[in-house]
């Protein structure tokens, strides 16, 4: 089943003489429940592509269809609801809310959705990601790997169908990177989610079901 489809997606930043073409006529289809790696040089458009898939950014033209719905036609509020229900983000810099504990960070997307967190489910995620003894800690009391695991847990909190990870191991050493990647893969397998990740690490990329190579805003190969 197709989880993500991009049709002729183009993204241009700036205007007139300062225009930058970030993506150009990108067509893409990703099956549900798979792991997809996006690789490419800096400035090739990887992050832009990820942002557009996650509804964080809008394409200049083209369509982004997630679970059969064209999110480019969503209003701002609809996009916000889409993000919190359908998408889980994992960033290289973790982007946890520093004033909240690990557990509070994890439950925040649920609260934003005006729902009560399911304590069992939250405990399961925390347990799965090895954060049981760290759930009352603030982000700055955690190591990089632990913070990234908390970010993954937050991404999983709303049981989204799509996990988007932007260089999730970029700020970690190789040991922690591997550990985080293993956990991330295990989680998406366990919950049947679709994972799209950006990475510079080719070894990591190879572990994916599909590898998409980008160059100058265009897809050059899909393996």
């Amino acid at each position, binding site marked *: 089943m197709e989880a993500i489809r991009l049709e002729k997606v183009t993204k241009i930043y700036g205007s007139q003489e300062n225009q930058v073409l970030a993506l150009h006529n990108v067509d893409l289809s990703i099956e549900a429940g798979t792991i997809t790696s996006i690789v490419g040089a800096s400035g090739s458009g990887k992050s832009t592509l990820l*942002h557009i898939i*996650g509804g*964080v*950014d809008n394409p200049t033209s083209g369509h982004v269809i997630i679970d059969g719905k064209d999110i480019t036609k969503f209003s*701002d*509020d609809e996009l*916000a*609801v*889409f*993000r*919190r*229900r359908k*998408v*889980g*983000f994992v*960033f290289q*810099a973790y*982007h*946890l*809310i*520093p*004033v*909240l504990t690990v557990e*509070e960070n994890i439950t*925040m*997307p649920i*609260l*934003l*959705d005006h729902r*009560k967190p399911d304590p069992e489910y939250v405990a399961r995620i925390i347990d799965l990601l090895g954060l049981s003894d760290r759930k009352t800690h603030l982000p700055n009391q955690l190591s990089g790997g632990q913070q990234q695991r908390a970010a993954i847990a*937050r*991404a999983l909190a*709303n049981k989204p169908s799509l996990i988007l990870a932007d260089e999730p191991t970029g700020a970690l050493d190789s040991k922690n990177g591997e550990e985080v990647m293993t956990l991330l893969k295990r989680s998406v397998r366990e919950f049947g989610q679709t994972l799209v990740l950006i990475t510079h690490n080719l070894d990591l990329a190879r572990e994916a079901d599909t590898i998409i190579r980008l160059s100058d805003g265009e897809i050059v190969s899909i393996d």
Partner: protein
Amino acid sequence: MSYLYLAFRYLINGKKRTILTILGVTLVASLLYTGTWAVYSAADFTWVYSVAIRSADPELAADLIRDKRVECVKVGIYDNVLVDSNLARTEEEHSRWETEPILSVQLYRPITMKEFAEEITETYQVETIWNKDLFTVLDEEKAYLHALSLTICYILAVVGVILVRNSIQLSTMEQIRDYGNLRCIGATRRQLRAIVAVQGYAEVTAGLILALILSLIFTDFLNFLLQRAFILSTLDSAEYIGYRIKVLPLPILFVSSAFYFDLFFILQENLKRVSGMSAVEAISGHYRFINKKIKPRKARLIRRFFGIDGEYAYKNLMRNPGRVWKNVGILSVAIAFITSALLLSSAHLNTLLVYQEEYPHYQIQIDPTNKTSIWKYVEFRRLQNSITHISDPPLFETEAIQDLIDHGYITESRAMYQTLLLTSESLPEHLDPDVVDEVALGRFIKEDPEDPCFPRTNSWTFRGFTEEEKEIYRSALVEGTMDVSDHGIILTKGFIYTIIPDENDPDDYEMKFYENTCNMNLGDQITLPDPIRIEELKNEWIDQVYSNDETMIAMFREAYPDNAESDKNLLDRKSADYVAFQRKLCTDQYRLWYEEAMAEGRSKTFTIEGILSEDLLYETQDDFSLLLLPIDRYLELTGKDENTGITVLNYHIANPLLFDLDTLVTEYRHRSDPSINTDYLMVSDYTSITSEWAHDFAENIKTYLIIMLVIGGFLIVAFFNIRNTTKNSIYLRRKELAQLYVIGCTRNGLLRMIRYEGYVSTALAAAIGALLSIPSIILLKFDLMTDPLLGEVRIIWWIYPVALGIGTLLILGFYALSIRSISKYLKINPAEDLTASGE
């Protein structure tokens, strides 16, 4: 649980700033509450003022009671309700209305009494009087004080807004990346706005609640100070002394609404920024909080003098001139306030110190058997002891004296044994010829020809002295001895003055001073009648006169043919047993009683064996001459014992501050003729002028007290603002600072650049502050107050530059403290800060 708890987590996490913001709001709002209460209380404190209607018509009274503007109506004799109602007190009205039955009307809104009185006069064709003192207090002279208070309130409000604005903006900036993250994980713009708004509203609400508590404390404290300053307020009929700041609900509503209203707009500004930011911008750190184009500027001169640090500071300041001027504006007002406050305070202090010597002490002498005999004496030493002020003060109750003692105003109190003996013929050769003529004619020289109640110059005051007092008097002994024989007496040698009416024009007073009219020397003899006998004759005569109303009226009419009082009034006065009225009746009889006592041989001759310096005269009534003799012989002479013989309680009142004048001196009256030549002032003119001046002085002291408190608050708020602005500035430029750090600038170098910015702002603020403080000097010099007796307020001019310097140094100190307290924000982490968002 709701996502909004994140707002509270932000508040708790940034608790230092949260507390400072709440404290700032608390301080500003509490000053605003107190200030507005003070302003509105000033218009409201007049509730006891009444309108008097010259009528006792029951139908009119019934109409008035039904009037919704009227709180209550009393019926009474004008003279009786005068003190309670604090009505107009012109001499003319007083004499015409004195014994008239009137309706005294208390209005809910006394401020409307003039209109009310005019309406009643027009409708019912009756005379009315409304209290003019109310408008004396509220007149234009005082309006500027209220305007000043209101201006300060407005400035504080602006400062409060800026404080809240800075705090919220800083919070928003610090949290901006989090908002980006929240956007990514699905927060809507409305949710983000709610998180920001809840923080602002929580801080302001907490601040306003605390402000209410603090302002109640402020108000209590100020009321305590005001009460302390006007310790005798409850004893005086003049209600301006009874001023109290009242807690009023409407100002609370106004101030709170103003804060929420301001907050609403402040939040709009920040919410727009938060919701206008895209998630990509926020998380990537490329969001520009303030989109301003930076213009290239040349600063060669600054670089030459202050180096690259100075140049950077200048360029950075000029990057956002609006912010700089806003900052400089606040600082300059702060400097102007400090300068003005120091200048005004020093001028007042200096004036107090100078006048302290010229108004050294006051005395109250009270005859415990007769309240109407209370006298008060103020000596004007500057006039070379040539005039002593005598006037009728308000009646002091025993409790009031106790109150004075409790508050440390009274430094000495003692019972005095004193009586007054009349001598018209015993010593004519020692008196001024003019006075002798008057006395020989059997007339007493009167202070007021219309009110011949009090005999004056041709009398002697006898006083008995105890062993303790003897030692006090000994220090003033000029010649002779204090240890007098059985027939000996001590004379206090001095001057006598009197006022003699011009026969052609009874209203034209001519003041004459009879220096050293008592040309008496050691060994001179004085023959005085027995005071016991005089008292007996007086009582017999009073009984005889009072036994028959017609006789009394006939005698009064014969003695005072010009008096227009009705028979009923005279009988009322008789039944009220007025001592003054008795004296009025008795005046011309004293001479006869004197002669009768002498003829009966009820007299005694004394020899002057000691003479005291006239320095003692400040505690005597100067139109009486004072004779002293030991207490046992005094009691023997007057036929009284130690308990019943006390005729006067003498109190020395220390004058720690000049505004005591206002609390102790007589009722406040306007000076009748401001252009009067001070060389020939009447006693009553001195009274008026001094009272008026003292009243103004006290009013100003009261106002300055409030202003000083406000200034204190203002400075604290200014400190918060400097701190916030500097922190704000560092935060906005942390990427840039990180770049400087990476290319080799040390942390101290960064601090120095920021300090230079503070110096430039302070220098500009000092220049503007110097200009802004000039109006206070003008006020002080020309308008604020003048002293008609002694000249203007003594300004210490060198204080001006010193005060300006102190103000500037204070602000620089605040900068140093601010920078010190926020230097931790300059712990640059290049890896993190180089990707930071900001300007």
